[in-house]
């Protein structure tokens, strides 16, 4: 992938798509599976768009549904979820780790700026609870607990610029 900052893992129903999106003037370039596609998006009405992928057009109904999107396209209803690739990796690693030995140190998944730390030492956390918010890739990324535990130590502070894989906090 040329530009890992714009790399996403999109899950449509149960199928995963690893792709990169780069704006090009008024359209986009999408890199997927080794190929590059030119994508134009035109708004038709309220929640309806015409997406043109290379030379092929599709009418797409698209609306937010919680953290994902409801999509209706060519007779098919789908649910799509979009994650920055790094976060998706982290999530997967976390759930894998969970099934083996629990990872105690929570690390920064991508270079960014710590916006807030939601916990303090001694707090009990549940799996999925937000631990910190990091601004990166032009968006707020929520760092969540991969398993239940208690916060032991915190290594970062709001306002701090952090590097990838830097220690964020420790849970035991």
């Amino acid at each position: 992938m040329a530009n890992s900052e714009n790399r996403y893992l999109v899950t449509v129903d149960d199928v995963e798509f690893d792709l990169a999106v780069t704006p090009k003037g008024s359209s986009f370039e999408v890199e997927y599976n080794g190929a590059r596609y030119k994508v134009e998006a035109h708004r038709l009405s309220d929640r309806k768009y015409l997406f043109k992928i290379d030379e092929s057009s599709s009418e797409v109904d698209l609306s937010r549904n919680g953290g994902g999107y409801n999509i209706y396209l060519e007779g098919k209803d789908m649910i799509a979820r979009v994650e920055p690739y790094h976060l998706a990796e982290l999530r997967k690693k976390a759930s894998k780790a969970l099934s083996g030995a629990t990872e105690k140190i929570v690390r920064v998944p991508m270079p960014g700026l710590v916006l807030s730390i939601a916990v303090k030492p001694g707090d009990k956390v549940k799996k999925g609870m937000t631990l910190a918010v990091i601004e990166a890739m032009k968006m707020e990324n929520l760092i969540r607990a991969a398993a239940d535990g208690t916060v032991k130590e915190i290594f970062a502070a709001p306002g701090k610029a952090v590097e990838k894989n830097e220690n964020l906090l420790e849970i035991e």
Partner: protein
Amino acid sequence: MPKRIKKILVANRGEIAIRVIRGCRDAGIVSVAVYSEIDKTAYHVRLADEAYFIGQAPARESYLNQQKIIEVAKEAGADAIHPGYGFLAENDQFAALCEKNRIIFIGPKSETIALLGDKLEARKVALKAGLPVIPGTDFDNKDLSQVEETAKQIGYPVLVKAAAGGGGKGMRIVREPERLRESVESAIREAGSAFGDGRVYFEKYLENPRHVEIQIFADSHGHAVYLGERECSIQRRHQKVIEESPSPIMTPELREKMGTAAVNLARASGYLGAGTVEFLVDKNRSFYFLEVNTRLQVEHPVTEMVTGLDLVREQINVAEGHSLSFRQEDIQPRGHAVECRIYAENPHQDFLPSTGKLTEYREPSGPGVRVDSGVVQGSEISIYYDPIIAKLVVWGTDREEAIARAQRALTEYRISGVHTTIGFACSILRSGGFRAGEYSTGYVEEEFPDRNFECPQSDQAQKAAFAAAIFDFLEKEKVSLTMKRRGEKAGGWVQYYRNQNLSRLSKMR
């Protein structure tokens, strides 16, 4: 003495009400719609010349309210009532009520409806008229001692059916002798509570036959003709979903035999108007009388497309007391027609009806395409009535062209707001068995055990992934901008977002 009908009350709703209203308009007849509370802005109300409120949403308080409908017919000065299909269409008491009130019921006489509505009686009429019926027999419900002997003569598996039957109630397939008695007893109980009539009878159970029906038409001057057949074996939940004419298994000889049989039954029962004689056809092309539908059929447009006739108009013509406008030899079917019923159902959830508002509704059109629909954009699909949205009926010079056009039309269809059977229909039309014309009533379950019905586009998921990623990208840009502009007043970024980023989702022309 022929009587000119000037005004028809259409005692129905949805697509069939609209079909009949259109037929009235084409014939210069004033149409009167009736509607329930939730149908007050329904399309059939808008299209009719007049519309009358008849009660609350539940059908028994409105579309099944015989007395109210008769009252409205009198108030509106309607000469005739067209019942469509469903609701009161096969209700002999309603037909009799019309007769009593000197309103023409567009359908057979009430006694014919009563006679043929009783499956056991219909079977007797068919036998008498020389039609092949499925081996079977009735028996005295009170003495079940000979039941096992009778079943043995017919041969297992046997089908237990209710005389007053319909909708599969009181019906049992029995494959082993030891389960017979309990099945018969429970069928009697079920039929008794469903129809107030516990009479049941046996038929030999045919495994996966084809369902082929003959359209008949009879006038009050002794003429009766058949208008060819419709193949209706593609079914889900034992209800037809895709029909075609001609049937892929039909030969001119078989058509003439089945047609003649159907006409004989029409004559034997004193039939009047449009009707359908349903047959089962086995692998050897032997056919067996099944039942008669004493009304216009959902799938009648298939016959209209190949014969060029307007069946509603012909119903009116015959109801007025005229002779049929055609003779048997005038019927020269041309080309091939396929109908796909579009239901508001979720094929992936066992065809569960799907309710909601049609936020978008756009029909296909172009060469060979006819859509009989009951809705427009903005219409609401409610829990109260049949979830049929429309019938897509397509004509082609041959079967291949008709199927190709049907597939094309299905991809042009746009319905948002409810689940539909469009993807299901696409799957069927492109499946090997259907294309080869080799399918029986068990086809859907055999071919699609995992219910994986999809429209032909293979890469919808990939397209959806691209669309979601780009949309998300733009949303994330928005969040980023929010944070960079913390000091600014609320709403600032929204403006910026709209101006700068959504312009990438370039404005509609």
